[in-house]
């Protein structure tokens, strides 16, 4: 098993008052599984990913990532953000090689690996480009390559495509499915978009807000690669949307 959340709760205290953000979260994610967390904004999705990445610790309950407590290098989990958070003073290839440089891989070697992963996300021709020359979709691809070249066992993705236009998003949905099939990483993908969740996830966990709890988990047994316009997706979307509306109340 890749990820195990057991009765996890998280409260933040702000200005003296304690706010319960997550409550009694139970979730198991298998190795190489693709799980989407779906919920309205403010329901604690990012907080949940931050717990998995080790940036926050639970108020109660246990979080186990790759058999360890989160945040250790050995947990081998990489978090991706909605804004690609590339480093503008580095070229595209040096951005991709950032984590390799942190591991002190020699420069020629990390350039080679970076080139390989830029190829994987279709941006090989842009390896010498500057970050500001890239579109939003290209930036997310670079961020993806930057994470993938570390060969992480777990990818934690926090609404990575939320600020992209529909066409770019469609394209990236295809690419992410292809890459996931090729790398067999475990992916926990956060979104507030029902179709996106159904296109990508093996399972979709619907969260309800205040406090954030898992309302229901939907298995998605549709063949891959899936597309936005697949009838199966539309059909499932109705049920998930209904659950989401229920959750909002």
């Amino acid at each position, binding site marked *: 098993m890749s990820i195990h959340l057991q009765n996890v709760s998280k409260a933040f205290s702000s200005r003296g008052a304690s706010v319960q953000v997550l409550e009694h979260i139970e979730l198991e994610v298998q190795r190489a599984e693709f799980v989407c967390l779906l919920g309205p904004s403010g329901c604690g999705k990012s907080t949940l990913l931050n717990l998995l990445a080790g940036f926050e610790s639970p108020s109660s309950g246990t979080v186990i990532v790759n058999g360890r407590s989160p945040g250790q290098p050995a947990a081998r989990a*990489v978090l991706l953000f909605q804004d690609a958070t590339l480093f503008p003073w580095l070229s595209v290839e040096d951005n991709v090689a950032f984590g390799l*440089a*942190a*591991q002190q891989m020699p420069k020629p070697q990390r350039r080679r690996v970076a080139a390989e992963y830029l190829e994987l996300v279709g941006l090989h021709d842009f390896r010498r480009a500057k*970050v500001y020359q890239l579109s939003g979709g290209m930036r997310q691809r670079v961020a993806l390559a930057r994470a993938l070249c570390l060969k992480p066992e777990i990818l934690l993705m926090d609404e990575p495509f939320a600020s992209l236009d529909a066409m770019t998003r469609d394209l990236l949905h295809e690419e992410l499915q292809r890459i996931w099939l090729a790398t067999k990483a475990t992916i926990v993908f956060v979104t507030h978009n029902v179709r996106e969740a159904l296109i990508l996830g093996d399972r979709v966990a619907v969260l309800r807000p205040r406090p954030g709890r898992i309302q229901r988990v939907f298995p998605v047994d549709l063949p891959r690669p899936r597309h936005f316009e697949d009838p199966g997706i539309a059909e499932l979307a109705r049920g998930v949307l209904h659950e989401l509306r229920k959750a909002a109340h």
Partner: protein
Amino acid sequence: MNRRFATKFSFLFVVLALWQVLAGLQLWPNYLFPSPAEVLEVYTAGIADGTLLEATVSSLARLGVGYAISLLVGVPLGLIWGRSRLVQDTVGVLMIGLQALPSITWLPIALLWFGLSEMAVIFVVFMGAVWAIAIATRDGIQSVPANSIRSARTLGANSLFLTIQVLLPASLPSMITGMKLGWSFAWRSLMAGELLYYGVGLGQRLSQGRELNDMSLVVAVMIIIIVFGLIFERGVFQPLERRIREQFNLG
């Protein structure tokens, strides 16, 4: 570019011509309003006997050493200041207070600590520049987006790597502002220090000019300071700023 150069050159010429005309009218006695020719004479004499050259070199040396130490201390200080809550709540408050103190007020202490030596003036220069540099570095560090830091962390960066590869480069635009401010504070401190403390230097030339009623010497020294100000602004800080702008594409 050529036209702009011509404009600058013509402007300089007009200023000099106006100055010469004003001096030629003899509205004020010579020792109160010297002519450009007299100032030029100070330069030729000062370069010939080496006094002005020596003064310029020793002042620049003090400035350079004091400023270099300010950078070496100010940047790491700002880094720790920006990162550590504990430092912000303790030493940070103290440093904000010290920053408000005109650096020349350190001269009496510096003279007691270091005696009548170079170190005393260098210390005053250091005290003048270091806070601006440290504060700008702190501001830069604190404005690094939290997600950039988390991104680096999740990619496996340790604290040292994070600092060198993310925090410092991200803070450069703010740091350069602090470095410029620190540089001008360093000059002010140097002049204040040299005016009060007798040793070879431009400040000492200035007070000598006053004592000898030699206004042309005073003006000559002021022009030297202006020229070096321009040289460093145009030759060091502007290219540095431009490079950083390009790196970050700030336009």
